[in-house]
């Protein structure tokens, strides 16, 4: 009985990964573009990189896609003309606008972004990461996820590129996929936060608290980074879907490729 559920869970996990793959592929394309231009000799300066970022961010935000924010954030000290640098564009009512940032560390409003999840996790693991969902109170007041992936010159990470996406748009595409299973299924992020769930009692945004869940999610994260990170900087094309962990209470946790999301099937 549990074998059947697990089997279905793996298939559903693969379909969740596929659904998000469109956004991932877009971000990978941006990363490839920035890496290629840098390899061709583009200067490691904000002045040189910003137009390249703008060239992919503007069309992505103008088109009717899931994406509501897009940009590049530099590793501190890597750019010769800016110690700290963010080049991020946001969808706005009057067209895309550039996010105004404080890049001067002596300014009281400055904050070190290297401690934050959307920077810290992908830079440490070497692979893309999905942060959120969270309420984006600075820009849209909407419920958002942010996906970020490292940009390299040779072996060294020089920054990240990424995108913001609306959760309700994502949910519209993901919930039918989850419903294909016969059991109560929740899609959670690496912190155990529910992105969407078939059970009406499991609200998006709540933290799923089950015995052993946070340990199981932490374990899937370690597997991801040891499998895919330093060994192959060109990144595995095929996400390793299907690590299944059974919790003490009987629920199965299935990783969804390298989305950093997991299914919890009860």
């Amino acid at each position: 009985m549990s074998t059947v559920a697990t089997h279905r869970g793996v298939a559903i996990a693969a379909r969740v990964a596929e659904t998000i793959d469109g956004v991932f592929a877009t971000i990978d394309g941006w990363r490839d573009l920035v890496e290629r231009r840098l390899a061709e000799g583009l200067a490691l300066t904000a002045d040189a990189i910003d137009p390249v970022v703008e060239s992919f961010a503007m069309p992505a935000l103008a088109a009717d896609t899931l994406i509501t924010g897009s940009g590049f954030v530099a590793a501190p000290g890597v750019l010769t003309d800016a110690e700290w640098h963010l080049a991020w564009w946001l969808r706005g009512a009057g067209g895309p606008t550039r996010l105004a940032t404080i890049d001067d560390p002596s300014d009281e409003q400055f904050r070190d972004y290297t401690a934050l999840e959307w920077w810290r996790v992908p830079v440490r693991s070497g692979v893309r990461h999905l942060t959120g969902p969270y309420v984006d109170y600075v820009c849209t007041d909407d419920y958002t996820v942010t996906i970020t992936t490292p940009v390299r010159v040779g072996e060294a990470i020089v920054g990240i590129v990424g995108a913001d996406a609306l959760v309700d748009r994502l949910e519209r595409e993901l919930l039918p996929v989850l419903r294909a299973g016969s059991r109560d299924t929740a899609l959670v992020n690496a912190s155990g936060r529910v992105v969407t769930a078939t059970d009406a009692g499991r609200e998006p945004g709540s933290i799923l608290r089950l015995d052993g869940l946070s340990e199981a999610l932490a374990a899937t994260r370690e597997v991801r980074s040891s499998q895919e990170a330093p060994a192959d900087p060109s990144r595995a094309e095929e996400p390793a879907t299907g690590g299944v962990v059974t919790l003490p209470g009987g629920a199965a946790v299935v990783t969804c490729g390298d989305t950093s999301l997991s299914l919890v099937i009860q």
Partner: protein
Amino acid sequence: MPHATGRVDAARAVVFAPLDGAGRAELVEQRLTDAIVSGVLRDGERLPSESELSRSLGVALVTAREALEGMRDKGLVRTRRGRDGGSFVTFDRDSAGRMLEARLGEHSRIELRDLALHVGAIAGTAAEVAAGRSSDDDLESLRTIAEHADLTTAGGARRAVSRFQLEVAAISQSPRLVREEIRLQAEAGPLLWLCLREQEYRERSAHAREQVIAAIRDVRPETAREATITHITSAFEWLVHERLELDAAGRDEASRTPEDGSA
């Protein structure tokens, strides 16, 4: 992006969030005046241009211009022409203090009570929900805000209160609570947190943050709510006390005026 991204300062974002309803110049003027007087916008700081203001506040260009003119007349901003030109904040502690007292004088005790209830309902519920929905990263960003709070000035203490409450609202995962928190902070924050002019209240606010963080960490929603509302109530009680003093001072003044023939 986000909460917890650190890409933009939240206390500032509140100041330039869209205005409700008809975009009247007085509303713009009040919002910016409050921000200057309470120290969210600093002396010498350059304000966004008229067109930037009209866009971010969602008002007509002429309205933004009118508001800036009004503030110029009050001596709150100074305009410089030329390449490095623009409108700059000019802050004078004494006149700022008088302005806030005048603002306090406009509100009755009943209005102040109502305001504190409303602010407490939103912030208290946000804290309660956040206690069930906080991840380790969320807790960490609350701790960062608490550690970086500048308690040496009223403005610094105000910014810390503003950022912390906004972050708690964001952790509740409710876009509506976040929007309402932003709206209330812009409308009433500077008035409600007048008590932060006193060191004792700055320390109380730091203590309240520690209590809320501990309650969220231990997943104790009721305690998180209670600590939040107790903090807001103490700010309100300070205001009422101050309001009564102002009243008393006003009556003394009146009774000393010979032209005033009332009994």
